[in-house]
């Protein structure tokens, strides 16, 4: 019962209801946006991975003689207030955002799945301790906990990843626990038990494949949330230390020249928004698919 209102509110907010009759045209349009989202994620991933080898100027090279340059063939998206190439910095920022954005939820996914599945499968005292711990962690606004921990641990991409990953553990634990609870009572689990399967085997071979889909859908949403969180922390100057480029840091720097060169703040903001939107779209599509499959039998 505890937290039931919160849970139901969130779930209801996220599940699309009153299903529209999926006419051919509309489904085609949805597939089309999904494809665009996947293409954007692919492009950002390519930029993040191949960035250092792309024929772009050094993202940290300052050219004080050419600050806030207009868009040109030499600098596709111009230069910032320190004469640094904006495109190079966007690409370098993609590296930070995606590295933190993917690795932090992975930490949360790994720990949260283990904890949530164990709690949902074994129940009893373990379940009480795990849910209690989750409730304590969820009492802290995530950004507050992140900032407080960053303040003590110091700034670096690795530390930020670990902190954000830790903060994601409760959410993943909840998803894994809820899914495990529903599947653990099914016949095939009882059958496996009757056949003498070990707990570990049941958890890994019988339950994990079923729990995996909602977790992966949530993982994509978590990536979107993490990209925003990393952006916020970097915007506050508490993310990756300067001069290393990050989208949030670029927005903060660009804010200073909103009157003369608004694009310096808008470009990283738009890139961040589209990336977040893309991950949300793919996550939503995946969730819709898993929901449909679950309601089928």
């Amino acid at each position, binding site marked *: 019962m505890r937290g039931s209102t919160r849970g139901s509110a969130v779930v209801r907010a996220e599940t699309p209801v009153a299903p529209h009759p999926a006419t051919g045209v509309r489904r085609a349009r949805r597939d089309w946006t999904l494809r665009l989202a996947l293409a954007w994620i692919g492009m950002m991933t390519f930029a993040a991975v191949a960035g250092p080898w792309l024929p772009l100027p050094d993202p940290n090279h300052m050219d004080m003689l050419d600050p806030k340059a207009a868009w040109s063939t030499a600098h596709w998206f111009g230069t910032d207030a320190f004469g640094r190439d904006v495109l190079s910095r966007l690409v370098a920022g993609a590296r930070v955002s995606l590295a933190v954005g993917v690795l932090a939820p992975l930490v949360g996914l790994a720990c949260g799945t283990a904890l949530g599945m164990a709690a949902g499968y074994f129940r009893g005292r373990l379940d009480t301790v795990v849910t209690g711990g989750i409730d304590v962690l969820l009492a*802290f606004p995530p950004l507050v906990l992140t900032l407080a921990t960053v*303040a003590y641990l110091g700034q670096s991409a690795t530390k930020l990843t670990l902190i954000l990953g830790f903060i994601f553990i409760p959410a993943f634990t909840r998803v894994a626990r809820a899914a495990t609870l529903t599947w653990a009572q099914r016949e095939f689990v009882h059958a496996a038990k009757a056949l003498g399967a070990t707990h570990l085997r049941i958890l890994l071979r019988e339950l994990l494949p079923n729990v995996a889909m909602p977790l992966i859908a949530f993982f994509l949403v978590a990536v979107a949330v993490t990209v925003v969180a990393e952006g916020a922390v970097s915007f506050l100057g508490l993310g990756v230390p300067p001069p290393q480029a990050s989208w949030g840091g670029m927005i903060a720097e660009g804010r200073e020249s909103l009157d003369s060169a608004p694009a310096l703040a808008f470009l990283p903001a738009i890139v961040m928004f589209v990336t977040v939107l893309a991950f949300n779209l793919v996550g939503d599509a995946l969730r819709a698919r898993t929901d449909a499959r679950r309601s089928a039998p």
Partner: protein
Amino acid sequence: MGGFVARRLLYLLPVLLGVALLTFLIGALLPGDIATTMLGEDATPEALAELRRDLGLDQPLAVRFLGWLGQALQGDLGRSLRTGQSVAGAIAERLPVTIQLVVLAQVVALGLAIPIAIGCAVHAGGRFDRFFSGVAFASLSVPTVMSAILLIWLFAVRLEWLPATGYAPLDEGLAANLAGFAMPALTLGLAEWPALMRVLRTDLIATLQEDFIAMARAKGLRPSRVLLVHALKPSSLTLVTLTGLNVGRLLGGAVIVEQIFALPGIGRLLIGSIYARDLVTLQGTVLFVATAFVFVNMAVDLAYAGLDPRIRRGAR
């Protein structure tokens, strides 16, 4: 109902104890030492040891925690390492600003969410519904910093209607006060409305299919009356809950917005203490924010249970 309230309150104790313990441990276990912060990196080891003794830092962890908790329970969160001001006093000073911001943000969010949700629910699946459901989905992906930057650019740089930053207390006049809150409240409201809209839309669509709505329509009541009186009220339970939860979350979660618009609220106190490495203020503020969140959540849960009997009987 009495039993439900008692159980809920009883469960609060371990959670609050856990919150206090975690807040304390973040400060106590992670690297970064109050004594070094106060005296600077090149203080002599003797001076550091003496200060640690004075502050009680040489005591065992459990003793320090109990001492800190005992003081916190009496409302003493210590004194700022930078200004010497009492942390509880600093929080009390800044709380009204944050509360005003959060309330105004909810007004903006509800002002957008309710009419749009009604419009969507009336013709679910129609053009208006599809458009605004799409807008809401996209809005959920807009980072707060982005909407803040866009608003500053539009209203402060281009139109020059509002100051980019600046806070005026109420006694400097309502207009100046509201002008300072306009963009921050709008930024938060723009982030909050999609979730509220989706919740209300869902509930409204469900309510509109109930028998008593058909009954009201059959009686020949005006469609607007059916919608606003008969349908809206029973559909707003989740909306009210979510709004309550948002208020609790934003007490500490308005950090970014307060920082961008230089509003002297709780969030800014928190960020300022991080920049200044003022660990006592940081610890006290985090404890306050988390405790407030727990209490607001409980109040919302209780209110919800009071409104919906199914909850307190554990039917859900």
